[in-house]
Each structure stands twice: as structure tokens, then as C-alpha cells.
């Protein structure tokens, strides 16, 4: 009898193949654009476009995709529900509200400070959502995201009202629809913070799996339940705030990616989290490329592409994962 502790469902060639695919997509993202680069002999002008626009955009896509997918995964563990992500728990909406308030009351402050305030708001929103869930007795699987979407809707309409009254509708539109066309060198570097947050999430992967087993089992195994819960919410809130500040909201990503990976290889985060990160990056790169190519030379914002693709996938997952057999 083999101990076979890690009989991986994915064959051994999968990781190198995955890295190759990711690199190929990143290369494609560098190649596609309105400006025509002469790849045989890059001029100074070409280098400038590459380093100031194309490369930052590609890196921003990878960082956003990775961290949003991972934050969705963590949220699903914390709430113990498959159908949540920061966009269905009020987290993103609260971050957006925070940004709006900063634009209103402290427009002169640096982007980092604004992001921190947005993250604090996101944390507050998420905690409020958790409290709401505890107060609502009926916790059917589909009820949880519905409550979250309604809760987010309340925060969203407050934000909308304020933005409307104070002529900030344009800023609001920038934050709430993901778009990478404006990413330039000097305007995306904050996103590297999400790489660090994703690394922290990976280091704590076992703790998040345990918290997904529920309070009783987690506490029995000696987990500091509240501190891990808080750690998870802080990571999710920071990732949400950073992405809203830099690229805007990308819907469904945090919902779909963890579900697909879960169906394929289960929920042991130590093993599945790298795949969630990878698939998040791949999906965002593909959607962004589609958005750039579909009506070339114009662009469709990635939020829109993802919204179309994501809602279809979401309905599929909803049908597949709410079968009685699964509960």
C-alpha cells in the first residue's frame, strides 16, 4: 500500500505547460496594440511604447487576475459558500465608497493613502456582511450571495447618490468598470502589493482550508478562528481596494475561477491556490485580448467582456453545484 499522500490529479507535466501558456498569453498581450511596432528592429519610440504602456498593462493584468481570483477563493472559505466573491459581499462596493469619500474630502492625498482608506472601508463592509449573515437564520446556499448582492446594492446606491450630487459620476464609472487601457508606467505599481498579499495567502493556505471546514472543526484542530478570519478579510479588503484604485472592478472573476479549480482538483488550498492564481491570470489575459481584438482598433473594457463570459459561466456553475447530491 503506497502512502500516496500527494497523488495529484494533475499529471506532472501540467505545471510547466501551465507556465508556458501563461507566458505565451503575456507575449500575445505585449504584441497586440494600436501602435505598430517593428519587432525586427525596435526603435526608441517602440521601446517607449513597450515599456511605458504594453508591459505595464500586461503585468497589471496578471497581477489583477491572480489576486482577484485568490481573494474570491479566500472569501469563499471565510463565508463557507461557493457563490460569493468580494463583488457579492459588499466588499468592492464599500471600497468604491471609500474612494469616493476620499475624492470628495481629501482629493489632495496620495493614491496610497486613498487606497488604505478604501481598504478600511472594504474591511468594514465585509465585517458588516458577516454580521448580517449571522443575524439571518436561513442560510440556504443561494441566499448568502443574494443577501450580499442586496447589501452591496445598498452601499452602491449610497455611492451613486453622493457621486451624482457632487459631480463625480465619471470617477465612479472608472472604478466600477474594469478597464486596462489607461494603465501606464507609474500608474499601476500599487498592484505589486497584491503579489505580496497573494504570497501571504499562500503561506496561510492551510489555515484558510481549515476555516472552510467550519468553526467547530477548525477550533478543534487548534486554529485561532477569529484571527485567521480577520487575516483573510484584511487580505481580501486590501486586494479589492488596490484593484479598484488601479484597474476597476472585474466582475465574476473571483467567483468563477475558484469554482472551476475546485471542481477539477478539490479545495485543499495548499494545492489548489496556485492553480486559482494561474487561471485568474489566464482568464483576465484572454478577456483583455478579446476586448482589444474584437473591434480592433477600438477596445471593449475587460469588465464588459468578463461580464458577458462570466454571467454565462456563473449560471452553468449555479446549475451544476446546487444539485441536491452535492450538498
Amino acid at each position: 500500500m503506497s502512502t500516496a499522500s500527494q497523488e495529484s490529479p494533475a499529471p506532472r507535466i501540467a505545471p510547466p505547460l501551465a507556465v508556458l501558456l501563461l507566458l505565451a498569453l503575456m507575449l500575445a498581450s505585449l504584441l497586440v496594440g494600436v501602435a505598430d511596432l517593428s519587432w525586427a528592429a525596435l526603435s526608441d519610440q517602440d521601446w517607449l511604447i513597450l515599456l511605458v504602456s504594453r508591459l505595464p498593462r500586461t503585468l497589471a493584468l496578471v497581477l489583477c487576475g491572480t489576486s482577484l481570483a485568490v481573494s474570491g477563493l479566500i472569501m469563499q472559505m471565510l463565508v463557507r459558500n461557493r457563490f460569493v466573491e468580494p463583488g457579492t459581499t459588499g466588499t468592492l462596493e464599500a471600497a468604491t465608497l471609500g474612494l469616493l469619500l476620499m475624492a470628495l474630502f481629501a482629493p489632495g492625498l496620495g493614491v496610497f493613502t486613498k487606497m488604505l482608506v478604501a481598504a478600511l472601508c472594504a474591511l468594514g463592509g465585509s465585517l458588516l456582511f458577516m454580521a448580517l449573515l449571522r443575524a439571518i437564520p436561513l442560510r440556504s446556499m443561494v441566499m448568502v450571495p443574494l443577501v450580499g448582492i442586496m447589501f452591496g446594492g445598498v452601499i452602491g446606491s449610497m455611492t451613486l447618490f453622493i457621486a451624482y450630487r457632487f459631480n463625480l459620476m465619471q470617477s465612479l464609472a472608472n472604478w466600477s468598470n474594469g478597464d486596462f487601457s489607461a494603465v501606464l508606467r507609474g500608474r499601476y505599481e500599487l498592484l505589486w502589493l497584491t503579489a505580496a498579499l497573494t504570497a501571504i495567502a499562500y503561506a496561510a493556505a492551510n489555515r484558510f482550508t481549515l476555516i472552510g471546514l467550519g468553526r467547530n472543526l477548525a477550533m478543534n484542530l487548534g486554529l485561532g478562528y477569529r484571527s485567521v478570519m480577520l487575516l483573510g478579510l484584511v487580505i481580501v479588503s486590501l486586494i479589492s481596494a488596490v484593484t479598484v484604485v488601479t484597474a476597476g472592478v472585474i466582475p465574476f472573476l473571483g467567483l468563477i475561477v475558484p469554482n472551476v479549480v475546485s471542481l477539477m482538483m478539490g479545495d485543499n488550498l495548499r494545492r489548489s491556490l496556485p492553480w486559482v492564481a494561474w487561471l485568474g491570470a489566464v482568464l483576465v489575459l484572454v478577456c483583455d485580448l478579446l476586448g482589444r481584438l474584437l473591434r480592433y482598433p477600438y477596445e471593449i473594457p475587460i469588465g464588459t467582456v468578463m461580464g458577458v463570459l462570466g454571467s454565462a459561466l456563473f449560471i452553468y456553475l449555479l446549475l451544476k453545484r446546487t444539485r441536491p447530491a452535492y450538498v
Partner: protein
Amino acid sequence: MIQVTSVTKHYGDTPVLRSVSLTLPNEGVTALIGPNGAGKSTLLGIMSRLQKPDSGQVLIDNLDVHSTDNALLARKLAILRQDNPISLRLTVFELVAFGRYPYSQGRLTDEDTNQINQALGYLNLHSLQHRFLDELSGGQRQRACIAMVLCQNTDYLLLDEPLNNLDMKHAVDIMKLLRRAADELGKHIVLVLHDINFASCYADTIVAMDQGSIAHQGTPDELMTPAIMRDLYGIEMSIQRIQNKPVGFYHL
């Protein structure tokens, strides 16, 4: 030794435990019995630190379970509650391996792997170890959960109706296994049981609860009497000795 001192608990206005005090010996199997709503599960929940009492305290080896470091307690005492709705897609092996988390935080040593394989073997789970939990029957999942707390390898093991969902063969197997763990490894096992005959055949001590209080405590021979059973459950039971164990018959 487990010492429960004046533990009180209310759910809303309803008292569930009325100043319960209880001292349990160092080793052996203790069965908590009693009618529905007697407070057995709540008492077990409070003993295991998962629930907080309104007042009173629980000491395990002189450690107050509600103020001692959680990670330390996880190496001393394991608890499995009645319902463990696991919605995660983990394999049986992965779940059981988490039983070693208090020791290795997820990086398995050889010792951990041995313990895991032993627990899988005890519960007859080797053939299922790479299956996902959501592909198993309720009884198989229950066995996986028991294997998990077993390989936590703690001195104290608290189980809330561990025989739930199990067929007769597996129920008997688990009771025999727990008996062996108590006899050979010196573990102290406290379990809530609904089947009084399992309690009578396998427990050293039976604690009978009724309406939030301890009604009786003693050996199976002391407790398995028609009078006590009538008092506890309100039914007539004829007690017979089979293979030198008192067995209650109440089905007609």
C-alpha cells in the same frame, strides 16, 4: 481528569444546563445518555470549549478549557460534534491528514504519515482515501471525520453521537475501536450515545442527564435498572443479562 464545576447555560430564556458539576475519571469510556433535550450535546460542547457557558468552568488536567491556548488544547483534547457539514471538496486522506494539524501545521512528518495511515486502517478507509468527501455516503463521511479526530492522538476524545449514520457493523466496529483505544492506549473517551445498550456494553461509566442536570452517574450495572430507565425515559424496560452485560429491551 475532567472537572466540570457549576456550569450553567441558557438558550434565550430556556435553561439547558442547570448548574452541572461532574468529575470524570482519567481513563476509560464514559457514555452520556438521556432523553432528547437533556443537555448532553451542550455539556459536551462546553467541555470541549466550542461553546461558552453562562457561568461555571471546565478543567481538563487542571487547564481551564475556556482560557487555555487553543493550539495547546488541540493536542490534549479532540471533539467531534454531531453534524459536520463539510462543503469543501477534500479527499478522505486530506481530511484525515488535517487531524495532524495541531502537531505539524500541515507539513507532514513521517510520524504524521504513520498516524494517518493507522487511523485510515482502523476505520477501514484505505480503499476510499483518494475519493472526495462529496462522493461518499453519510456513514463513510462520518468514519472519515472519526479517523481525523483519532489521528489527532489526544488524551481526551469527545464524540457527540459518533454512531449517527452508521450501519450496525460499523457502529460495532467503532465502539470496539474506542474500547481498545481506552484499554491499550489509556485514552479517555467521552461520548454521547442514544443506544443505551451500546453504553451498557462498552462504557465503564454512564452519566445520565435529564432536564439540564446530572440525574445519575455510575457503572452500567448500577444504572441499568428498570426504575432508573423509567425515571429517565418514561418507558418500561426489561433488563436482561446477556454475556454478563445488562441489556435493556423496550421495543414492544
